[in-house]
C-alpha cells in the first residue's frame, strides 16, 4: 500500500508546463510596439505610412536582433558586452580589406571565414579577461570597445572602402539583398538566429547552465557547472553574433566606412533589457530581446526621421511656406537612447517590483496603497564582484622598502623611468621648456579627471561619463557665450552647474535608486555627449571673448593682460606654468587632504571597503557615494571649461576616450577597481604615466638610416587600452591576490616535499 502511495499512479494526462519561450512581458511589448508604430504613422505618414518603412525597420532590426541574441546569453550570465558595436565594425572593415580588389583581393568565402574567426577571437579574449582573469566585464569589454575602434580607424585611416563591381560576381552578397518573396534576406538570417537562440536558451542544458550561472555563480559551481566556460561561451556567442551582423552589413552596403557599428552596443543592450532581461543576471529571454531590438530600432528611426513641419520664410517681402523636417542634429539621438537604456534598467525593479501601477491606481481611487512586492531594496544592487584580499606585507617596514609596499609605488617609479626614457630617446628636445610645458598641459586634463575618479573608484563605484561630461560642460560654456551672449563668468558658472547636474543624476541613480554605477554612468556617457552635440548642433564653435580664453593661457600672458611684465627667472617660470596647472595643483591639494586626513576621506574608504559595515557604523554611505560622483562630474566640467579656453574653440568630440585615460591613471596609481583603495598622489602619478606614454608614443623617432617614424593617433588609443587592461589585471593578480609570493610559496612547498621524500627514501 505504502509503496503504491510513494510511487504514485502514472499521469493520465500531460501536466501543463509553464511557457519558456514567451511570456506576458513579450505580449505587452508587441502591443506597445503597435501603438508606437501608429504614432509614427500619425506624425510622419510620408515615411512610416509605406510598406517600405516596415521592411526598412525590419531590415535594420535584423542586424541588431542578431546581436541581441548573443547579448542575451551574456546578460543572463550577469555579464555585459560593450564591445559588440566595435566588433561589428572590426569585422566589416576586415572583410572589406580582405575582399576589396584595392586591398588583399581574396574571395568572399575565405574572407567570411577569416572574419568569423576574428569575431570568435574577440569573444575569446573578452571571455578570458572576464572569466579567467576576473576583470570586471564592463571594464574589459569597454576597453575592447576602444581598442576595436582604434584598430578600425587605424586600418581604414578614416577612409571608405567600396567594392560594388567585384561584389556582383559573388553569391555572398545575396545575403544583403531582397529575395523573391519581397523581403530582405537579412530578416531570414535574423529569424534563424532568433529561433536557434531561443531554443538554445530556453530548452537546452546550455541555457539552463546560463540561468544558473547568472542567478548564483557559486551555487552553480557547487552543482558542478563549469561557470567559467559558461561565461566564456556566452562571450564567444555574443562576438559571433556581432561578426555575423558585421557581415550582414557589408553584404548589404558592399563597402564600409570607419563609422560602422558605432554606438551599436547601446541599442543592443537597451534591446535586451527592454526585452525583459535583468542587469543583475539570471533573467531574460531571447525572443523578448529580439522584440526589444525591434522596439529600440523603431524608436531610433522615429527619432532620426524627424517630424515634417512647415516653416514660413520671408523672401523679398513675400511670405512663403516651405516644407521642412524638424530633425535632431546628428549625435543627439544617443542622448535619448541613453535615457532609454536607464529607463529600461529601472523598469523591472522599480515599476514592476515596486508595484507602481497598483499604487498609482490606489492613489487615484483614494484607496489604501498596496504593499510593494519587494520591500528590501532593489535587486539590482550587489553586482559588485569580489573583495580585495591583499596581505599586510608592508607593516613594520621602514624607508625605501616601506615605500615599495605602497600601492602607488609602481606608478611613481614608472613615472620617473618613463621620463628618463624620453630623455634618452630625444635628449635634444625632451628636457626643453617647451616640451615640459606641453607635458604639463596634457597632464592637467587627465589629472583633473583622475582626481574625481579617485574618490569614485575608492568608493567602489565607477564613472564612465567623465569624457562626455567634459564635452557637455564645454558645449554649455561655448553655447552660453556664442548663442546666449553671456559673459565669461556666467559661462563658467553654467558649465560647472551642468557638470554638477550630471553628477547629481549619476549619484541619484547609483546611490539612491541602487543602479550599478557602471550602468548609470554608461547611460550618462551617451546622454551627456548627445546633449553636447545637440547644444552646438554638431558644429565646432570658436571665437570667444579673450578674457575667457585666459583660463587656458600661461601665467605670463595672464599677467601681461593685467599690465604686469615679469622678468628674469620668474618670467621663465611664468611661461612654463599655466592657469590650468595652478588650478590642478590647488584642487589636487584640497582633494588629497580631504581624502587622506579627514573623516570624509575615511568614510569614502569605509564605503568602498564594505558598504554594509560602513552603514551599520552610522556612515551615510548614500551621501558619500553621491558626493563622490558629483565631485567627479565637477572635475570633468572644470576640465571642459579649460578645454574650451585652451583651444579657443569647442568641438563635440572633446574628451573622447578620456574616461579610458582617467580610469587607467587611477588604477595604475594604486586604486582598485573593486573599491576601497586609491590615493590622490598615486592617481596623479598614474596620470603622469599616461601622459608620458602618450608623449613618448608620439615622439618622432629618428632611425640610424636617417628615416623617422611617428605612431598614428589611432594606434596610440589601442595602446592605452592595452595599458588599462594590464593595469587592472596587474592590480587584481599582483596587488590583491599576490600571485608572485603564492607561486614562490608553492615552489618552496614542492621543493620541501621533494626533499622530504628523498630523505625518507634514504632513511628507508
Amino acid at each position: 500500500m505504502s509503496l503504491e502511495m510513494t510511487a504514485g499512479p502514472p499521469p493520465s494526462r500531460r501536466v501543463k508546463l509553464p511557457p519558456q519561450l514567451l511570456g506576458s512581458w513579450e505580449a505587452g511589448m508587441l502591443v506597445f510596439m503597435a501603438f508606437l508604430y501608429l504614432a509614427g504613422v500619425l506624425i510622419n505618414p510620408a515615411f512610416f505610412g509605406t510598406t517600405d518603412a516596415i521592411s526598412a525597420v525590419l531590415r535594420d532590426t535584423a542586424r541588431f536582433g542578431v546581436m541581441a541574441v548573443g547579448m542575451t546569453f551574456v546578460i543572463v550570465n550577469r555579464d555585459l558586452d560593450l564591445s559588440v558595436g566595435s566588433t561589428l565594425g572590426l569585422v566589416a572593415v576586415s572583410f572589406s580589406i580582405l575582399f576589396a580588389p584595392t586591398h588583399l583581393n581574396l574571395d568572399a568565402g575565405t574572407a567570411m571565414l577569416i572574419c568569423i574567426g576574428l569575431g570568435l577571437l574577440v569573444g575569446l579574449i573578452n571571455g578570458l579577461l572576464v572569466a579567467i582573469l576576473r576583470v570586471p566585464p564592463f571594464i574589459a569589454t569597454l576597453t575592447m570597445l576602444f581598442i576595436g575602434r582604434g584598430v578600425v580607424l587605424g586600418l581604414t585611416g578614416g577612409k571608405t572602402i567600396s567594392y560594388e563591381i567585384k561584389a556582383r560576381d559573388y553569391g555572398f552578397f545575396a545575403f544583403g539583398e531582397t529575395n523573391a518573396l519581397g523581403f530582405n534576406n537579412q530578416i531570414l538570417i535574423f529569424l534563424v538566429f532568433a529561433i536557434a537562440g531561443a531554443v538554445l536558451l530556453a530548452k537546452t542544458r546550455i541555457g539552463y547552465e546560463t540561468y544558473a550561472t547568472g542567478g548564483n555563480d557559486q551555487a552553480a559551481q557547487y552543482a558542478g557547472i563549469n561557470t567559467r566556460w559558461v561565461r566564456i561561451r556566452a562571450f564567444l556567442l555574443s562576438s559571433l553574433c556581432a561578426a555575423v551582423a558585421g557581415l550582414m552589413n557589408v553584404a548589404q552596403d558592399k563597402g564600409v566606412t570607419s563609422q560602422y557599428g558605432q554606438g551599436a552596443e547601446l541599442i543592443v543592450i537597451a534591446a535586451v533589457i527592454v526585452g525583459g532581461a535583468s542587469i543583475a543576471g539570471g533573467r531574460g529571454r531571447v525572443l523578448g530581446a529580439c522584440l526589444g531590438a525591434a522596439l529600440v530600432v523603431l524608436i531610433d528611426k522615429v527619432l532620426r526621421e524627424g517630424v515634417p513641419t512647415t516653416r514660413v520664410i520671408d523672401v523679398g517681402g513675400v511670405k512663403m511656406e516651405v516644407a521642412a523636417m524638424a530633425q535632431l542634429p546628428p549625435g543627439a539621438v544617443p542622448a535619448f537612447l541613453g535615457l532609454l537604456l536607464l529607463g529600461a534598467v529601472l523598469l523591472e525593479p522599480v515599476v514592476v517590483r515596486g508595484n507602481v501601477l497598483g499604487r498609482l491606481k490606489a492613489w487615484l481611487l483614494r484607496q489604501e496603497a498596496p504593499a510593494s512586492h519587494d520591500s528590501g531594496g532593489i535587486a539590482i544592487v550587489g553586482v559588485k564582484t569580489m573583495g580585495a584580499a591583499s596581505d599586510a606585507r608592508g607593516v613594520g617596514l621602514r624607508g625605501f622598502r616601506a615605500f615599495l609596499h605602497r600601492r602607488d609605488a609602481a606608478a611613481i617609479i614608472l613615472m620617473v623611468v618613463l621620463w628618463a626614457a624620453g630623455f634618452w630617446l630625444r635628449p635634444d628636445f625632451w628636457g626643453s621648456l617647451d616640451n615640459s610645458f606641453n607635458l604639463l598641459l596634457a597632464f592637467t586634463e587627465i589629472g583633473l579627471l583622475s582626481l574625481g575618479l579617485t574618490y569614485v573608484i575608492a568608493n567602489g563605484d565607477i564613472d564612465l561619463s567623465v569624457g562626455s561630461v567634459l564635452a557637455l560642460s564645454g558645449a554649455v560654456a561655448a553655447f552660453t557665450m556664442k548663442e546666449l551672449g553671456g559673459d565669461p563668468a556666467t559661462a563658467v558658472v553654467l558649465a560647472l552647474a551642468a557638470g554638477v547636474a550630471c553628477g547629481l543624476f549619476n549619484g541619484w541613480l547609483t546611490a539612491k535608486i541602487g543602479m550599478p554605477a557602471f550602468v548609470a554612468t554608461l547611460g550618462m556617457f551617451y546622454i551627456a555627449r548627445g546633449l553636447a552635440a545637440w547644444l552646438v548642433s554638431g558644429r565646432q564653435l570658436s571665437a570667444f571673448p579673450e578674457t575667457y580664453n585666459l583660463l587656458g593661457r600661461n601665467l605670463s600672458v595672464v599677467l601681461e593682460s593685467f599690465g604686469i611684465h615679469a622678468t628674469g627667472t620668474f618670467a621663465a617660470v611664468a611661461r612654463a606654468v599655466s592657469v590650468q596647472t595652478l588650478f590642478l595643483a590647488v584642487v589636487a591639494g584640497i582633494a588629497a587632504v580631504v581624502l587622506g586626513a579627514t573623516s570624509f576621506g575615511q568614510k569614502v574608504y569605509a564605503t568602498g571597503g564594505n558598504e554594509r559595515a560602513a552603514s551599520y557604523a552610522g556612515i551615510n554611505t548614500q551621501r558619500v557615494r553621491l558626493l563622490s560622483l558629483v565631485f567627479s562630474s565637477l572635475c570633468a566640467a572644470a576640465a571642459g571649461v579649460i578645454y574650451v579656453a585652451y583651444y579657443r574653440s569647442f568641438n563635440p568630440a572633446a574628451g573622447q576616450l578620456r574616461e579610458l585615460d582617467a580610469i587607467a591613471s587611477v588604477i595604475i596609481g594604486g586604486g582598485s577597481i573593486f573599491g576601497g583603495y586609491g590615493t590622490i598622489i598615486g592617481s596623479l602619478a598614474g596620470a603622469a604615466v599616461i601622459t608620458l606614454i602618450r608623449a613618448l608614443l608620439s615622439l618622432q623617432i629618428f632611425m640610424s638610416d636617417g628615416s623617422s617614424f611617428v605612431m598614428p593617433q589611432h594606434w596610440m588609443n589601442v595602446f592605452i587600452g592595452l595599458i588599462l587592461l594590464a593595469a587592472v589585471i596587474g592590480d587584481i593578480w599582483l596587488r590583491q591576490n599576490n600571485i608572485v609570493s603564492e607561486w614562490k610559496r608553492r615552489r618552496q612547498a614542492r621543493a620541501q616535499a621533494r626533499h622530504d621524500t628523498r630523505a625518507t627514501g634514504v632513511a628507508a
Partner: protein
Amino acid sequence: MTTPIIAMRGIVKTFGAVQALRDVNLHLMPGEILGLVGDNSAGKSTLMKVLTGAYTRDGGDVLVNGEITHFKSPHESRDLGIEMIYQDFALCGNMDVGQNIFLGRWPKRFGLFVDRPKMYEEARAVLSRLKVDVNSVFQKVESLSGGRQQSVAIARAISFNPKVVIFDEPTANLSVMATERLLETMSELKRQGVAQIIISHRLTDIFEVGDRIMVLKRGENVGDRYIAHTTEREVLELIVSGTPETALTAEEAMKKAA
C-alpha cells in the same frame, strides 16, 4: 527589583505574508548573559535586528532602561550603548585595525581632520583591555584570521563602553582555541558589568558562560530558563517541540521544578 536594561514587549514583525515575530517578549538584566536559541527561521536574528533598529517593528515596545525607544537605524541604538557583533563581523577589509575599531566614529582634530595619534593610541588600549594580541594596529583587517577579525569587531563594540553587546552566531566559524578565547572574553565583559545576548546554535557554549537561556520557535516565545536550573536536554526539547504553553518565565519554571 531593578529595571531591566532591555525589555521588549509584544513584538510583532511581518514580511509580506510571512509573520516573522508574533507577540515576542524579552528582558535582559544589567550584567546578565542571555542565550537566544531556536531552530532556523525561529526569528532570533529578526528580533535582534528589531532591537538594534535595523528593522522597524510592526507592533510592541522596546524599552531601554525603562524608556520606550524608536530606533530607525543601528547607530541610533549604538548611541544608547547597544552594540551588535555581526556574524560576518561587518568590517572594512581595506582599512587597518585602528580605522576599523573607530569605523564611522574616527576621532577628530580641529573638527575636520582625523586625529590619527589618538585613534591608534586608543585602539591599542582597547585591544589590551580585551587581552587580544593583534600584531599591529596598522595591519589591514583583510590579512587577519577569522578569530582575529572577530577580536577587532569585539574591540569596536566595546571601545565606547557599551551597556549591552549582542553576538550573532559568534562561534560559528571559529576554531576550538578561538572559541575558548572568545568565551573568556565574554566572562571578562560580564565582570565589567556588560550585559550580553548570544545568538547561537551551540548550546555547550551558552551553558558554559550564560546565566539564562531563551527559546524561540516560529516567531514565538516557547521557553525561558535559568542555566543553573535546566539541562541541555530540556532546552533541546523546547527547541524541537516547544509550544506557547511551555513558555513559562525563568522564575515560574524554577518554582515549578522546585
